[in-house]
């Protein structure tokens, strides 16, 4: 069940509204919670889309959802409220999330599970971080499934610096810290080869919360302004929804690299 529906149409207020089944909301809000308390929701053509940058400005979520969208307003998903509402529902229950702008500084949200109740609340319009706007080219791309990716990154949950290497049809994660060395790889379909340094526990945390049934694409992106750096892109495809995390590289002094 993934179609758009209006809860009510006052006609006076700008709004944005979409419907997804509770199971999909659960999977998505579980990810949103890792990014922030509020996620920006907007209309991208005929699809709902979202973005958010984390408070530390080290990664950004850009999502494109596969559902029809009603309304034109830029809105906010309140992740805690959404998660607490949907977690009690059966996965197949259709849930409508509607954001309505009341004034410049006040909004109203209603979360409606058909036949199972509605929650409505008003909030101050929150200040939401804008995404970093960078132009970049893809340096290398590979794909695998999320389950294997989770296994791989579970080894790096408390590691500060990791090196991600895509080469020879393998995705390798490599750390050297406090006299300990860990290097683990898995076979992938890759378009070329490249490598860069990232924060291990940050990437591991993001991967840990991706829906396990999803397929994933890993990219190293070359920013046009700093062509020696690489931004890490992790995209998960879940029920035709596309969730892309862009993760900033870790600053590692030249003599500390390997």
């Amino acid at each position, binding site marked *: 069940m993934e179609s758009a529906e209006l809860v009510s149409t006052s006609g006076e207020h700008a709004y944005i509204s979409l419907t997804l089944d509770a199971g999909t909301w659960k999977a998505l809000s579980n990810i949103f919670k890792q990014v922030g308390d509020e996620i920006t929701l907007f209309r991208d053509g005929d699809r709902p889309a979202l973005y958010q940058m984390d408070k530390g400005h080290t990664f950004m979520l850009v999502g494109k959802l596969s559902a029809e969208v009603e309304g034109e307003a830029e809105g906010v998903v309140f992740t805690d409220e959404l998660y607490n509402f949907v977690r009690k529902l059966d996965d197949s229950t259709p849930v409508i999330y509607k954001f309505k702008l009341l004034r410049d500084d006040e909004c109203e949200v209603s979360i409606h599970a058909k036949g199972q109740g509605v929650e409505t609340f008003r909030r101050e319009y929150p200040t939401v971080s804008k995404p970093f706007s960078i132009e970049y080219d893809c340096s290398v791309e590979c794909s695998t499934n999320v389950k*294997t990716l989770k296994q791989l990154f579970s*080894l790096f949950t408390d590691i500060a610096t990791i090196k991600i290497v895509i080469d020879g049809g393998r995705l390798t994660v490599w750390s050297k810290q406090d006299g*300990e060395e*860990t*290097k683990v790889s*898995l076979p992938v379909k890759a378009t070329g080869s490249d490598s860069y340094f990232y924060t291990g526990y940050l990437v591991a945390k993001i991967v840990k919360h991706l829906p396990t049934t999803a397929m994933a694409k890993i990219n190293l992106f070359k920013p046009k302004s700093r062509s020696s750096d690489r931004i890490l892109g992790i995209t998960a495809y879940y029920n035709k929804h596309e969730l892309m995390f862009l993760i900033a590289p870790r600053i590692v002094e030249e003599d500390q690299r390997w």
Partner: protein
Amino acid sequence: MSIMENPEKEQAENTVADASQTAITTSVGTWNTLLNVFKVLDNDVVFRRSDDMVEFYTIDPAHVLTARAKLSMACEGDGQGLVFVKDMLDFVKAFDKNAVLRYTFKKLDGYSCEVRLEARGQLEGFKTFRRMIVMPAEAFPEPVIHTAEASTNIKTLKHLFNNINSHRLDTVKVSIGENALALETRDDEDVKQFSAPVNTTASLDRGYYNGSMLTKMVKSLPDTAITVKISILKAADSKPLAIDVFLPQGYLNVVMLPRDEDW
């Protein structure tokens, strides 16, 4: 037959570089069987080669519980060393149970060692680290006189201990009666008893043990066990409890000292 098809018996592809190091190679599934039991004892584990098998033992820091295992594993080199349970658990969790894991222990001097874990499956990789060598105390010997014995299967044993899992587990009384294994807990006047039909020897007995530790130990035993034997033993003036677990790859033996109680 490839190493992937029969990791238990197949020799590792590489031989160890020098006599001061030992390599043990087996499947992640077999390592997990071993590690899940030994992690309850919260101590590093001593290993030594024994024919075409490897023996493992340790004792918990409070010296109440000893666990031993003798499993079929490919072993090369010096033939003795330490397994760092926590480090290994952190590494093997990422790999499927049919992946092959080679554990190499190398003594650097009298006090330190270098360990290399190398896994091959869908994921492939290694981890290397150095640790100080701190040998756990010698495991206490298993007394040979069994006053009472009960044989059952792992499912029955786990089910029986599940009954007392949620209770306040200070001391549990283990009784081997006629064709029954019984557990009893007491919380002030609240007495709870559970029993399961098992095969027992003619002689019967009972003993008192640390309930939470015993429950945790039973929970950690591998579901692949073929049979399980519970024995109350006769030591100098106490009655330790022994659990013998017979596995396709070998066996596990746990001995727990009793508590001085009588009710």
